[in-house]
Every structure is written in C-alpha cells, then in structure tokens.
C-alpha cells in the first residue's frame, strides 16, 4: 500500500488546493488557509460571475441564452462564491465571536484592547 502511495506521490505531487494561491500574512492554520483560498478564488471569478448573472437576469436576451448562463453559474465550483468565506480572527484564526471592526476574536480583542493596541478603546466605565 505504501509503495503504491509513493508511486502516486512521485508521479503527481499532491496539491492542497485546485488552483495555486498566495499564502496570507498573520496567523496561519489549515482553516485560515482554506478560507483565504476561497477569498482569492471569489475575487478571481467575480467578473465572470457578474457577467453570467447579467445575462441570466436580462429579460432582453433570448430565454435559451439566459438559461445557459444560469447553468454555467450553477456549474461554477463552490469556492468561487463569496458566501463561502467566513470572517476569521487575524490573531488566532478562530471563526467564532469575531468583533467585526477589529477582525479579532473576543479573547484576542480583550488582550489587545487591554494593551492599548486599538486607538480609542479603553476599559468601559459607566
């Protein structure tokens, strides 16, 4: 089994993603890389998606052309869609409880705010 795997690896190097992408700066883990890949793909396919949507939704064009555009739109891989990306903490990579204006999770936000990393943010006293 391991021999077979070796042959496969030698013939075709394993790729993490279907298309080559650049590595993001900041905290890195598998999920951050995956999310970043989706972001880059969404940016790359943005024009195509918008053009296909223009054709699909334009009542002036023949019905068959519009349906064809809709089919092409559905055939695009999921990683080209912007609704696949999720906000991730730039400090720790977690996707839960992100504080939007600062792009960090709740615990990282607390640490950084206490250190005075965010201008104007201070301990709330009222």
């Amino acid at each position, binding site marked *: 089994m391991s021999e077979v795997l070796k042959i496969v690896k030698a013939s075709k190097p394993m790729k993490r993603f279907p298309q080559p992408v650049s590595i993001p700066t900041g905290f890195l883990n598998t999920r951050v890389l995956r999310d970043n890949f989706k972001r880059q793909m969404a940016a790359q396919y943005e*024009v*195509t998606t*918008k*053009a*296909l949507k*223009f*054709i699909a939704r*334009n*009542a*002036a*064009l*023949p019905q*068959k*052309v519009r349906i*064809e*555009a809709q089919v*092409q739109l559905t055939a695009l891989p999921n990683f080209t869609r912007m609704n696949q990306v999720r906000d991730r903490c730039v400090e720790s990579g977690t996707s839960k*409880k992100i*504080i939007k*204006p600062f792009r960090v999770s*709740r*615990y990282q*936000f*607390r640490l950084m*705010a206490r250190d005075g990393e*965010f*201008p*104007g*943010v*201070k*301990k*709330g*006293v*009222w």
Partner: protein
Amino acid sequence: MLTASCLRTARRQFSLSARKLNINKQLDELAALKLQGSKVPTVDSVKAEKSRLVDAFGQYEPQVLTTEEVLPGSSRPLPINAELNYYAPLKHEVKHGHLKAEIVFKAFEPANLEFIADFALRVAYYLGLPATGPLPLRKRTERWTVIKSPFVHAKTKENFERHTHGRKIKIWDADNEVIDIMLSVLQKHSMWGVGMKCNMYVQEPLGMGKAMQKLSDNAKQVSDLSSTLDTLHEESDSPVAQKVVELLKDPLFAQHLTSEQLEQVQQKASNSD
C-alpha cells in the same frame, strides 16, 4: 582712453606713495582723480518712487492689542496675525447663505479635535471664506462586552468602550476652487488621530427636471436587445461589460442566438474594439 590715463596716474601715484609710506593721503587724491573723470548718474522718477516706498515699509509699525509691545529676546513686536492666535478665530460674515461645504472632523479624543477645528476656522478666515462652527456632533459611544476567560466561565465579563467625538464646520458662499485649497491646506497640516470628511454641495441651474427627462430610459434596456448592447457599448470600460460581450460571442452562448442577433452582437463588439 580716460580710464587708461587714470590707471597710469594711479600706478605712478601708488609707487610714489609706496616710497613715501603716506597711503591715506594718496588714496584721497586718487578718489578725487577718479571722480573727475566719471559722471554722477541721475535716478529716474520711477526708481526714486520705489525707493521711497521701501523707506515707508521700513517705517511700518505693526499694531498690537496688548500693552507688551516688544517680544522678549527679539526686539521686535508680536505681529498682529500671530497675536490673534491668542483670541477666538475671526470669521467672515455669511452674506447669501449658500451652503457650499461641510467639513467634519472625528477623533477618539477631543483635545486634538478642538485644536484642528480652531485651525480650520483660521484657515477659512485667511482664505476669505465665510465659515461657521465648530458645531459639536453627538458623541458616539461603542461598547463591547467580552467574556474574560478564553474558554467557558461566561459569567465573568469585561467591558470596553470607545467614544467618537465630532466637530462640524460649514463653509458658505464660496468658490469650489478655494474650498479645494482649504482642504489641501488641512490635509497637509492634518493631525495624528483626527479624521476629516468633507461634503461638498453643488447648485444646479433651473430646469433640471427637463434635463432629467432627456436621460435614456433605463427600463428600455431590459426589453430590447439592441439597447442592451448599446448599454454594454457605453460601459465598455467596465470589465463586466467586456466579459458579457465576450460570453455572448462564445460558441456556447452563440448557438442559442439567431443569425440576426449574433450579427448584431458581433457588430457592436467590433465597434467597441
């Protein structure tokens, strides 16, 4: 000829004086000799006028409002525009009431904000712009309550907050170009931690309604292929419009178009190229 003779005399005189070591007397004689040969130039009236003006400028005494007339250490009085920094900024009167621009400053701390608003009013005054303000905007308070611990223990929390203060200055009856100058001055001397935003207002002439009626009908472009293509042609700078034309020419989509429609598309595409 004259100068040559002068030089010759001078050389002789100098050698004599060098012998006698009575240079001062000889130099006076030399000067007298020189003056004999040259005319005294006459100053024309225009230049004389100008020199008198320069004299008048030298006699200028700046007005001061305080009793202390001389700046310590410089033996000069404090200029009036420098002294005005100690008083509230001067403002030009609003004559016509045409609002031309609103400059909004925002910061998390009010100290720098007060300073920059004051500075902006002074800039407006020296540019001759009627300005009013600074109008304090409502303080915006953002609060975040986060769990203290990295995992569970959600009963213990910590509060953080951020206040955003704002000041608004309104510019009236002004030319857009002068407002641009003012904005560039403010941008050049911008301050740490203070954001600036400007809303500019333009007044349109009467008869705007008629002009708007002439604008192309937007509803038409979704009911008619040729007007759709026209729209794409007009927006040929947009990458999406380019992509749409490219897709329509693609055999995958072209197979669904009639020959006339395809011809129309190709004609428009060649026009845009």
